[in-house]
């Protein structure tokens, strides 16, 4: 279901995010952590874009930039003008992203008053009731608090909250990782229902390849703050091109190659100005220039590109 013709809705060009490491009160350290090195991507209207990567790869930072929760250090992030709010962010752990003292009704309607075209508390509450039903919760539970719900129900509530302002897209950061296996499927199915009913675009982040390849139209692979490969999800699942993607797709490779199993050089946070390919330290095919030159994008197939010196 790739959306070839769909217009681009959000554009990122050379987006970069650097954090200053907090080194304590009396420290003179000026350590910088480059969380996102230089990412360019297009997110199309109504598209589900999946992002995979291991912890520390910068995928959550990228999502926070796209959700306007952070400002990029450099680079541009532009959005097409629209009547509806651009995006809402759904967090991994619903129990820590909701005020435990507020009732469900307050949680849902709190943000509404800051929206354009706010029509008063009664309308907001009516919409809250509607959304509760839509996400499979009982509207009579509007006076309950987050603690009264199970993890799966809280994630339903988080989705309802995100939809209160009728956004064009949702950014879902590991939204099923904290849930029980038997509940994960329910939330994913709900997400797909909501996507179809509201025409939502999704930016879906997970470390779980099965989930990402199943849900996404297109997907990207991140490592060490760099986007290394981008492809339609089905194409990627059949044949990833980048050496890192191949390792991710088939961890058995780690059993054979010496370099792949080299856990000593496992992903480290880039603190200095990073150069070359972020995967060079673990790559079994590494060459001298991988460590010094940033790999260029190579076109592998339609809509399929990878950043690697060794691909032709």
């Amino acid at each position, binding site marked *: 279901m790739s959306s070839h013709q769909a217009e681009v809705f959000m554009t990122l060009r050379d987006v970069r995010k650097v954090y200053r490491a907090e080194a304590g009160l009396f420290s003179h350290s000026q350590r910088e952590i480059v969380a996102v090195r230089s990412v360019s991507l297009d997110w199309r209207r109504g598209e589900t874009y999946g992002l995979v990567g291991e912890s520390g790869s910068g995928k959550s930072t990228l999502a926070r930039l796209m959700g306007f929760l952070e400002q990029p250090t450099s680079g541009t992030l532009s959005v097409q003008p629209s009547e509806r709010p651009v995006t809402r962010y759904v967090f991994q752990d619903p129990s820590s992203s909701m005020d435990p003292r507020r009732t469900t009704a307050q949680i849902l309607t709190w943000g509404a008053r800051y929206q354009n075209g706010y029509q008063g508390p009664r309308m907001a509450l009516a919409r809250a009731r509607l959304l509760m039903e839509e996400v499979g919760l009982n509207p009579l539970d509007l006076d309950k608090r987050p603690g009264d719900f199970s993890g799966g129900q809280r994630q339903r509530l988080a989705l309802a909250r995100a939809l209160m302002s009728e956004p064009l897209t949702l950014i879902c950061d590991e939204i099923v990782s904290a849930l029980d296996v038997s509940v994960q*499927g329910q939330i994913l199915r709900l997400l*797909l229902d909501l996507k179809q009913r509201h025409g939502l675009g999704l930016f879906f982040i997970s470390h779980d390849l*099965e*989930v990402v390849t199943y849900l996404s139209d297109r997907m990207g692979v991140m490592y060490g703050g760099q986007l290394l490969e981008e492809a339609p999800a089905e194409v990627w699942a059949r044949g990833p091109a980048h050496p890192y993607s191949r390792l*991710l797709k088939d961890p*058995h490779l780690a059993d054979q190659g010496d370099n792949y199993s080299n856990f000593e050089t496992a992903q480290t946070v880039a603190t200095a100005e990073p150069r070359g390919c972020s995967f060079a330290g673990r790559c079994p095919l590494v060459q001298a220039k991988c460590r010094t030159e940033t790999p260029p994008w190579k076109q592998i197939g339609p809509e399929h590109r990878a950043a690697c010196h060794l691909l032709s």
Partner: protein
Amino acid sequence: MNSLLDVPNKLEVPNKLEVRNLSVTLGSRNNPIQAVRGVSWSVSAGECLGIIGESGSGKSISALAALDLLPPGSKREGEVLLDGEPFDEYSPAERRLKRAKAGMIFQEPSRSFDPITNFETTFRETLRVHNPRLTAVEARQKAIALWQEVHLGQPETRLKSYPHQLSGGMLQRVMIALALANDPEVLICDEPTTALDVTVQRQILRLLADLKVSRSLALVFISHDLAVVSQLADRLLVMYGGLVLESGPVHEVLSSPASPYTRALWSARIPGGSHWTKDPLQVIPGMPPDPRSPLKGCPFAPRCPRADAACASLPSLVGLGRQVRCHHPEVNNTQPPAGRGAHE
């Protein structure tokens, strides 16, 4: 492959760790939680028992109870046999020594180490619990050997480092090395790879599989992830609501699950690589049971497609080697389950 009730077999391969009819009650007297409700399992040398279940199924608690590591205030019933000897007959001091026969590793290695103690000291302390006369030099040599056994490089320099200096995967290796320090015969792994990245997870599984053979360890592997467990386990125990719903050799249980819960879990795997518009998602309806208010009948009944009036009473666990607790088990089923994706 020895099972609980296979008496002749049991004599040939003695169980390293066995629990019989184990029940655990947690919490206060006013608000007791029956976390485990009569669970029996055993594991012998060179074998891996996989215990699978969701949160609140009692899978971790049953393992903690086997090693006498329950939080204070909890109550355990049933028998634990370590190397064929009943654990309860020992005094607390003796139990502490006997427990050296079993090691345990936990989900989050970063939380299991003292952040201000370097690894050399940690290893020395652990080694001295059972060998108080050990000199610092001997302890260091032993620690280096252990580090090499779990394939951690540069032990001479790294032993001086602190937990925050190692990555999650490396810490989990140190954790395994530490668990092996006093030459245990049983190793209990409670979700050892859940907090790790996919590529690292694979390496840890590989290491555990190697150790199982090289040390002929009796391995108990606890996880919520069927795909992970199936890579390592020889036998599988499926827990739900504090009870065993199914058990047996791993390939048999997965290729023809008898319990509707096992089948549902296996079919509900996400069909990765296929797009959602082509392949609808199999979903288990309902919620996992609340251990605070257990049902009288089968705990899976409210979510089960095969449930009927009979399920209001608790079915008993029947079978030899291959056990199932269900009033309506799936029988004569040689077809692979409806789930997609190859089982590795």
